[in-house]
């Protein structure tokens, strides 16, 4: 227990003192403030006459001069944060010759990897919570409409899901830091996975779904629906999809769990179904939440098992 606490303490101190983290903080804060500023300028047009969820709209509205809404931009930055926190967790200790020295102390071997993971999780939580608070505070000042209780709960859920998403990327990076001896390799591998999921998952899902359910001009609605559900099912392998669906269900009560295309149609056509209450949104987001936790657990378990069975050599 003592060992775990000491390692968490050391890791947190290291993170706060590292240039790496200063860069991340600056990047995330700048982007957060920029998106909220643009959103505040465009919110009148986006909200129209509606009086519901005005505050929440700050987080989903984007502008023509800056097509990034806050959640979209978070979905890009959170993987970077997670990877930056985890990619050298274990192999840097090994290459610097600290690993055998640390493990020669009276601590359990898993204290080291658990401590690193928990400290990283704490850093992700601090970063995401602080940026959401700053953005919310700034938004409040810009538009002057206070959030309702439900909106605050929704924002809180958004923070939780975002932390889980960050935890997934960090545990993946930690896994690579155990598997690969060089920090450059583990960083590259993590980024490769991210780019693959980010850019190619949609294409692959499209190819597979298109092969199974060919859709053409004369397709029936049922065929298109089959295609769409398979397409989305395959896409859900990617934690990015889970995250996007999750935060959409939370932040856009009107949309619920509809597909991105449906969401676009809804957004621009003015077809506004009745908004879902928070409890219904949470029911919708549950599978995505479980999916993210499961993926995180799988990666971390892999890293844990490999690390526990490994031989600790200094050379």
């Amino acid at each position: 227990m003592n060992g775990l606490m000491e390692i968490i303490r050391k890791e947190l101190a290291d993170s706060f003192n590292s240039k790496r983290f200063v860069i991340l903080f600056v990047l995330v804060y700048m982007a957060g403030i920029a998106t909220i500023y643009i959103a505040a300028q465009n919110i009148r047009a986006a909200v129209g006459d509606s009086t519901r969820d005005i505050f929440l709209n700050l987080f989903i509205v984007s502008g023509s001069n800056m097509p990034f809404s806050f959640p979209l931009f978070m979905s890009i930055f959170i993987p970077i944060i997670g990877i930056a926190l985890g990619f050298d967790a274990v192999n840097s200790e090994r290459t610097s010759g600290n690993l055998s020295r640390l493990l020669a102390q009276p601590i359990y071997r898993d204290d080291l990897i658990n401590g690193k993971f928990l400290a990283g999780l704490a850093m992700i939580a601090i970063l995401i919570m602080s940026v959401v608070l700053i953005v919310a505070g700034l938004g409040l000042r810009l538009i002057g409409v206070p959030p309702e209780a439900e909106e605050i709960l929704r924002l809180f859920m958004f923070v939780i899901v975002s932390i889980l998403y960050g935890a997934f990327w960090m545990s993946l990076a930690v896994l690579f830091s155990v598997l690969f001896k060089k920090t450059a390799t583990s960083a590259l591998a993590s980024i490769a996975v991210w780019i693959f999921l980010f850019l190619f998952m949609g294409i692959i899902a499209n190819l597979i779904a298109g092969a199974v359910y060919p859709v053409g001009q004369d397709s029936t609605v049922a065929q298109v629906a089959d295609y769409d559900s398979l397409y989305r099912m395959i896409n859900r392998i990617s934690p990015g999809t889970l995250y996007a669906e999750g935060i959409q269900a939370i932040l856009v009560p009107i949309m619920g769990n509809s597909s991105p295309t449906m969401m676009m149609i809804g957004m621009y056509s003015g077809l506004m179904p009745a908004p879902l209450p928070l409890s219904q949104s949470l029911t919708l987001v549950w599978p995505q939440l479980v999916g993210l936790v499961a993926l995180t657990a799988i990666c971390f378990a892999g890293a844990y098992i490999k690390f526990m069975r490994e031989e600790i050599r200094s050379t």
Partner: protein
Amino acid sequence: MSDNLVIETRDLTKAYGKFTAVKGLNLRIAEGEVFGLLGPNGAGKTTTMLMLMGFCEPTSGSVLINGYNPAREPVRVKSVVGYMPERIGFYDDMTARENLEYTGRLNGLGGSLLKDRIAELIETVGLKDRADQLVGRYSHGMKQRLGIADVMIKQPKIAIFDEPTSGIDPEGTDQVLNLVRAMARQKVTVIISSHQLHQLQKVCTGVGIFSKGQMIASGPVDKLGRDALRKGNYNIILPIAQLADRVRSEISKIPGVFSIDSIADSTIVSADEDISGELERVVFETTGLKVQMKVEEFELEEIYMKYFEGSSI
């Protein structure tokens, strides 16, 4: 030698696929011993140390450190065992003092006790002037000395040093080995591997010679020397050039003596056991002289070479 064994291995074996790094090792080290592990690179010394620390699991056989199995009860073992790996590293962006503080806290130490202990150790290893400098600016020799402070911070009962003298200058080697000797004086059991045979001999109470994963010989240096170089016999050197025949015949009557040779300015009496006491008495009775005699000593290097001569290592 006391019978209080602190390190005991039984048929300890580690295999990597077809390659066997350590084969059937039976190591018994008593409390307070300084035991040197010798042998060419790749003979299994480091792997042995890793198994003692629980850093790699034996393929078969068992290890007991201070009565505990390092694989089963790592924390109990590591709270009394210090280990300095061959390529020791510290956090380069922290000072020497901060590095030692972290190690101390991992050992459950803290407060003024830890502060005082660190100050004392830093002085002992001669890093007082540089203690608040970043370790990144330390030389290799300084890091090795800091490593010894790092091992000593938990006040171990057993200390394991893997090549603490590799890659440092002769002065640094002396400093490191003096520190090891100082630990031995404080009744710490030490296991050390090194290629500096001459210096090692001055520190060790016993050595084990490793070759291709097996410990081919072990024991105190003088016994190893007799076994390897004199077929187990004792040579006692008398500083007398020519012995009178009468004396000679008296000496040859001592049980165990089988040859008396004169070389240069002394005489060597060979026997199959240590008869120096008897010899002294006989010489005194026959010549009336009280002579300084000594049992032949051996250079560790000589013994080492004897074991590895002719073998392609």
